[in-house]
């Protein structure tokens, strides 16, 4: 796999901030960003359930592999030179349930977190 397409929520301040941070990191795999359920995304992935991608972060590999929610977060970490080791660590069977819980919690509350952290604009 050489590239990952990240379908992010453009309406959430936290996601835009994360997007900026990711853009600055050195990568082992290319990351392309697309707003979820956008015209561009629908054209690129005609058979993907785009309503679902609005609910949680979705990552699609150049081979068509779809990663949703916590798995998508792990794939983004895996793409970064500094955090590849962490993606394997967090995906281990003994840590994966905790990873899922924490990531889901952040994802479900992303608008509130953005508001509290003052990153809405």
């Amino acid at each position: 796999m050489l590239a990952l397409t990240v379908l992010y929520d453009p309406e959430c301040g936290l996601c835009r901030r994360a997007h900026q941070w990711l853009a600055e990191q050195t990568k082992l795999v290319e990351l392309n960003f697309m707003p979820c359920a956008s015209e561009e995304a629908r054209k690129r992935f005609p058979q993907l359930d785009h309503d679902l991608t609005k609910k949680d972060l979705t990552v699609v590999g150049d081979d068509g592999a779809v990663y949703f929610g916590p798995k998508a977060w792990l794939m983004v970490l895996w793409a970064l030179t500094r955090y590849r080791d962490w993606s394997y660590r967090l995906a281990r069977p003994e840590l994966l349930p905790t990873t899922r819980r924490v990531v889901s919690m952040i994802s479900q509350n992303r608008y509130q977190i953005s508001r509290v952290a003052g990153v809405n604009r």
Partner: protein
Amino acid sequence: MTIGISTYLFYLAISIALTIWVGRTIYKNGRVFLIDVYHGNESLADSVNHLLVCGFYLIVLGYVSLALKLGYDIANAQEGIEALSWKVGTVLVVLGTMHFFNLFVFTHLRRRTHGRHNNHPPVNPDSFTPVEQEV
């Protein structure tokens, strides 16, 4: 020569000999690991190996030197042997700890560089979707 002085001399001789033996073992066997870590770059591996062993000698010999003083008088040969045994025992434990620390450093370096070259994704995909190539 009093029993106290000969205990000290025996202690120094045994400790230094043990330290050199462990140091040489680490130096000889660590080299293979480091060459692997640095992808066959032998001069870099030798340099890192030398620096690691240097640190090892400094810490262990420093400890041997600091732990020399007994702090009480030795009356007879039996007490001398007991004191010597206690001192050499602590040196052995320190050497063992340092040895495992070195092993940990070697395996950690090795795992880290190998992890970088691992191209397998950490999780399996949820599904597959056709991708339209950009025109």
